[in-house]
């Protein structure tokens, strides 16, 4: 069973076996390669655990179950099962994007395994609701689903161009290129719905572990007001605004991201 989970989620573990575990969880759209520039910075001291959600990256797509993954709890279950399989304790959970809320759900469902949370670009609800501004309207989410459809034909082959060998550059090797940011479009659409139609605002109040919120500048997916909302609703959380722009500081500003995490972890 444990081995099945590790294969199913393409779990990769690095760092000292007795190090405090850090579980890095990727967001909607990509896979564990999102942590390529960040995770190695922690592997000297921590036990780093990377994985792909079922349906993403190099996970076992045959394990995908529409019912299980209809909501974020199915993804949280992946996290819980991975922690169980490795019997991880005193876990730092690092979630990018939607994985922030998945991590909170996993923390609430796994007793006391998770003892610290790092939320990168979190949003408890992407769609506006009354006074709450998530940044998107329902129609925008429909637009995203249409966009996934539009790129259906292209994504099947377009990500496989031969990457010219150039050892000085940190780009993915050709074999990883084949899977990075690619998944069955039907699964992506289900994940998109689970992500963008979720409402985890009430869960924020239930978080009891030290939490770091890393907010990018000018993030259109998770605007600063949303990050502030998360921080205000998680008791005792730390809010750090990064200079990095966009939604993926783990790719665009790995140094700054890792530094902010390290500072937080020395106290958490």
């Amino acid at each position, binding site marked *: 069973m444990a081995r099945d989970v590790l294969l199913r989620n393409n779990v990769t573990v690095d760092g000292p076996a007795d190090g405090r575990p850090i579980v890095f969880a990727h*967001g*909607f*759209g*990509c896979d564990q*390669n*999102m942590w*390529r520039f960040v995770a190695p910075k922690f592997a000297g001291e921590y036990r780093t655990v990377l994985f792909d959600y079922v349906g993403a990256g190099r996970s076992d797509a045959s394990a995908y179950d529409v019912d299980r993954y209809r909501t974020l709890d199915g993804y949280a279950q992946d996290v819980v099962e991975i922690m169980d399989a490795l019997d991880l304790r005193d876990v730092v959970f690092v979630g990018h*994007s939607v994985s922030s809320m998945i991590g909170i759900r996993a923390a609430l469902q796994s007793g006391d395994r998770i003892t610290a949370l790092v939320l990168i670009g979190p949003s408890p609800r992407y769609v506006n609701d009354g006074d709450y501004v998530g940044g*998107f*309207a329902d*129609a*925008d*989410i*429909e*637009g*995203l*689903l*249409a*966009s*996934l*459809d*539009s*790129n*259906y*034909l*292209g994504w099947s082959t*377009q*990500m496989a*161009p031969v*990457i010219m060998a150039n050892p*000085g*550059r*940190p*780009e*993915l090797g050709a074999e990883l*290129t084949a899977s*990075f*940011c690619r998944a069955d479009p039907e699964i992506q659409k289900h994940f998109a719905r689970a992500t*963008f139609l979720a409402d985890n605002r009430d869960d924020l109040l239930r978080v009891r572990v030290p939490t770091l919120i890393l907010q990018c500048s*000018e993030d*259109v*997916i998770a605007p600063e007001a949303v990050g502030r909302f998360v921080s205000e609703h998680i008791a005792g959380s730390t809010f750090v605004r990064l200079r990095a*722009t*966009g*939604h*993926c500081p783990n*790719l*665009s500003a790995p140094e700054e991201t890792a530094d902010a995490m390290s500072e937080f972890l020395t106290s958490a």
Partner: protein
Amino acid sequence: MTNGGQLVGGQSGDAFYGALAEDDAEELYDNAPCAYLSTLTDGTIIKVNQTFLAWSGYERHSLVGHTRFRDLLAPGDRIFYETHVGPALLMQGTVREIAVELVAASGKRLPVLVNSVLKRDADGNAVAIRTALFDATERRSYERELVVAKERAQEAAAHARTLAQTLQATFLPYEIPSIPDLEIAGAYRAAGDGSVVGGDFYDVFEIRPDTWGMVLGDVCGKGAAAAVVASLARNTVRVEALRASAPSAVLTRLHEVLRRYHPDEFCTAVFVCIERVDERIRLTVACGGHPLPIRRRVDASTELVGTPGSLVGMVKETRYTDVTVVLHAGEALVLHTDGVTEARRGADFFGDTRLRALVAATPGPAQAIADAVVSAAVEFQGGDTRDDIAVVALVAGSAVAADDGGSLCDGSDVAAGRDVGNERAKGRHVLQ
């Protein structure tokens, strides 16, 4: 290049050099047949060409230095860009043929295909993103039609699968009659993803008190034609069993019906008459071109029951033989279609030996036997079933006797597989 003042292509030198002068790099950049824009790695636009401005309707000064490329995209596309394209670009250095819609100054949406490359400095640091956009209005509407057509095709396939499964369900009994001291269970697995109706069928039904008929058959072929024959075969067996004198007669009638109405189709079938006589379970088996049933004794030994007979509906002359056995307490009889034994892994077939070993190793209950045989056959071919598989298992209860009960079963039936020309010898009419 020139030949007597003439270019090779026949143009005058003046026209050639004149055109070349007009098409200098700067002019080409600005008025290229595609839109160009360059941005910082955070997407802030630093340079656009005239084509982009003409397509989008924006003023250069309102874009350069202020606007991020993603902000010009429709909101849904913006999410897609930020979650998929941006990371891929940073990680791979290039993305190609991304289909998005540009929101023009007028609010109108312009479908474009986007190619981008990451420009790095001498030290390998990403400094800019160069993007080319191609007007894809017509291509996108065509692609949308394709997507719609694909969705329709998927719906049609799902519909066909439902139809096939619904139809297939009619080849299997809704309910197996309960017979005292005899457990009966069936298991079925469609070929492939179940989208094509197969030709396997089975049925168990009461003929009169203490007598039941059981048939398991396999129509050659798949799809609608096989379904029609399977349906006819099942109904024919039900009707004929009520008036036939013996299982062999049922098969003979089935043969005649198929020859008459479906001369191009044929099937294999095994018919078993089940009787409760003197608290014993007596089985009379006739087989038409079908794998013989396997009997499992309580000591886990196995033997085949019955005599091979002609394919049903195929040749003109047929030969079906009735063989009677008494099932002792705890014994099983297992009927199967060739989807089990002909399950293939590479050049290897599941085969009779594996099947008999499996039956020997599975004492019951009946459902466990049927399920074990089906899953072993499915597993053997790695889950990708080429043919449909049907299995029916009978297990005699502990209350029945552990002997043949004297004359209930003439041992010569089993041993000699006596051909009685569709009529039972000794006046023993099994079905009447």
